[in-house]
C-alpha cells in the first residue's frame, strides 16, 4: 500500500474514533444528568460541554491513565519482556525498600542533589532576577542570554560539551582556574580550601551512604590538599555530584519566574518604606522577599520534582551513573533496571516509590506554605 495513503487512512480513522468516543462520553454525561433529575436545557448543555471537552478527556484516559494503571499492575509482577508478567505481590517493593543497596544509594544521591543544589539554584536565580530588574537598557538581551542554557541544558550535545569543559586534565575550566591563579597567586589557598571542603563533605556523605568510612579516613589523614590537586569533576566520586549541581545552577530557568514576580510587587510599598527610612537590605527582606514568596514556593516545588527526576546528567555526563555509582539517581536507576536489565516490574515499582516520594514532599510543602507564602488576595 502507498505509505501516504496509509498515513491518510490512519488519520481518518483517528478522527472518526475521536468523534465517536466524544459522542459516547457526552452521552454518558447526559444520561447522568437525566438520572439526577435535571431539566432538558441542562441536559443539552451538559452534552455540549462534555462533547467539546472529551477529545482531551479521551486522550488523557488512553495516554495517561491507561499507562499509569498498567505500570501499577506491573509493579506487582515480575515482567521480563518476551514473557508475560507473573504476579508476585509486594515482593518488588519489599526488595527495593529493604535489600537493594543500589536503590538506597540512588535515593540518597537524589536527596543530596536536591538538598544542596536547589538552594543554590534559587539563590542564583533570585540574584540574577534582582540584577535584571533594574530595567537597564539591554535587559532583553541579558534575559535571552540567561535563558539560553535552559533550552539546551539536558541536551546530549550540551552535556558532551560539559564533559570537555569539565575534563580535569585538559578541560577548559581547570585550565582557566590555573590561568587565573597564575595571575592572582593568593587564590591558590582559597582553591585548596574549597577542594578540601568539597572532598571532606562528599567523603562523609559517601561514608554515611555506604557505611564504609575508609575514604573519609584517607581524606582526613591527607589533610589540606596540595596546590596541585584540582577539582576532578565528573571523574571522581567526590566531585561528580558537585559537577551536576554546577550544571544545574547554570541551567536553572527559575530566573524568569522571579523576574515576573518582581514586576508584580506594588511600587507604593517601596515608596512608603523609603519615606520611613528603610535601608535597601530591609526593603529586600521585608517587602520584596515576602511579596515574591509565591514564586519561591513555585520554584521550590517544581525544582524538587525536577531534581528528583535527573536522568541525562548521569547518563551522558558521568557515563552511566558515574564513578562508583556516585551519580546513580532514582530516575537513572529506574531506567537502568527497566531498559538495560529488562526488569520492567521492578522499574515500575521504583517509579511508584518515586511518585509517592514526590507526592509526600509536595504535600509537606503545601502544608508548610501557609506559614511563609503570602498571597495578596487573602487580605481582601
Amino acid at each position, binding site marked *: 500500500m502507498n505509505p501516504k495513503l496509509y498515513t491518510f487512512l490512519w488519520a481518518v480513522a483517528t478522527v472518526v474514533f475521536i468523534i465517536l468516543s466524544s459522542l459516547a462520553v457526552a452521552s454518558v454525561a447526559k444520561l447522568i444528568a437525566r438520572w439526577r433529575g435535571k431539566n432538558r436545557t441542562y441536559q443539552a448543555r451538559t452534552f455540549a460541554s462534555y462533547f467539546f471537552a472529551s477529545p482531551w478527556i479521551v486522550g488523557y484516559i488512553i495516554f495517561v491513565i491507561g499507562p499509569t494503571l498498567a505500570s501499577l499492575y506491573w509493579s506487582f509482577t515480575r515482567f521480563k519482556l518476551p514473557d508475560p508478567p507473573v504476579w508476585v505481590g509486594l515482593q518488588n517493593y519489599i526488595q527495593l525498600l529493604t535489600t537493594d543497596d543500589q536503590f538506597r544509594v540512588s535515593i540518597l544521591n537524589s536527596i543530596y542533589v536536591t538538598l544542596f543544589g536547589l538552594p543554590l539554584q534559587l539563590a542564583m536565580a533570585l540574584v540574577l532576577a534582582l*540584577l535584571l530588574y533594574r530595567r*537597564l537598557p539591554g535587559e532583553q538581551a*541579558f534575559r535571552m542570554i540567561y535563558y539560553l*542554557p535552559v533550552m539546551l541544558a539536558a541536551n546530549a550535545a550540551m552535556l558532551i*560539551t*560539559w564533559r570537555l*569543559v569539565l575534563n580535569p586534565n585538559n578541560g*577548559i575550566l581547570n585550565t582557566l582556574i590555573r*590561568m587565573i591563579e597564575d595571575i592572582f597567586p593568593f587564590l591558590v589557598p582559597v582553591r585548596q580550601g574549597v577542594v578540601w571542603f568539597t572532598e571532606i563533605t562528599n567523603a562523609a556523605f559517601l561514608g554515611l551512604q555506604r557505611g564504609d568510612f575508609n575514604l573519609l579516613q584517607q581524606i582526613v589523614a591527607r589533610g589540606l590538599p596540595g596546590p596541585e590537586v584540582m577539582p576532578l569533576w565528573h571523574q571522581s566520586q567526590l566531585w561528580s555530584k558537585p559537577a551536576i549541581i554546577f550544571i544545574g545552577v*547554570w541551567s536553572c530557568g527559575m530566573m524568569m519566574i522571579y523576574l515576573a514576580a518582581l514586576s508584580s510587587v506594588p511600587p507604593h510599598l517601596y515608596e512608603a518604606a523609603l519615606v520611613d527610612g528603610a535601608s535597601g537590605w530591609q526593603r529586600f527582606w521585608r517587602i520584596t522577599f515576602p511579596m515574591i514568596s509565591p514564586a519561591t514556593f513555585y520554584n521550590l516545588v517544581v525544582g524538587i520534582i525536577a531534581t528528583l527526576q535527573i536522568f541525562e546528567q548521569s547518563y551522558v555526563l558521568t557515563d552511566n551513573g558515574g564513578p562508583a555509582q556516585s551519580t546513580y539517581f532514582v530516575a537513572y536507576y529506574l531506567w537502568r533496571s527497566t531498559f538495560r536489565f529488562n526488569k520492567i516490574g521492578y522499574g515500575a515499582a521504583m517509579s511508584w516509590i518515586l511518585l509517592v516520594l514526590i507526592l509526600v514532599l509536595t504535600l509537606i510543602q503545601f502544608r508548610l506554605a501557609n506559614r511563609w507564602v503570602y498571597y495578596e488576595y487573602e487580605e481582601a
Partner: protein
Amino acid sequence: MRKPNRREPFLPRKVRQAFSNGIVYLLLLAGSGFMLFPLFWMISTSLKTMEEANSPRITWWPAQPQPDAYRQVLTDSRWLLYFSNSISPTPRSSPRWRFWGRWSRWRPSPTPSAASSGRDATSSSS
C-alpha cells in the same frame, strides 16, 4: 515626614545611580560570560582539529577553522535520516517496514522497493 537625623549622601544622586548601574552591568556581563561560555566552547570546539580539541593548551578560536565535522555530519545519511525524523511528522525511515495488522509489531511489507537506497540500511534492524 522624613526623619531629621537621616545622613546626607556623600555623592550626588546621579553619580551614585550611574555608579551602581555600572556595577550591575559588570555583574550582568560576568554572569552572561558564565552562561554563554559553554555554548561558545561548543561552537569553537566543533571547528577545531582533534589535536587542538584535546591539547591542554587553550585554543580559544582555531587558527584555521575546520568545517570537516560539519561536512561529515551533513553527508552522513544516518544523521540526515534522524534529523528528518525529528522534524517531519511522518516517519520516513521505513519504506520497507510498516505497521501491519496486529498490535505493535513491525513486519516487512511484501514489496522490497527501496532496498537499494542508502538510507534504509539503518532500518533493517528492528
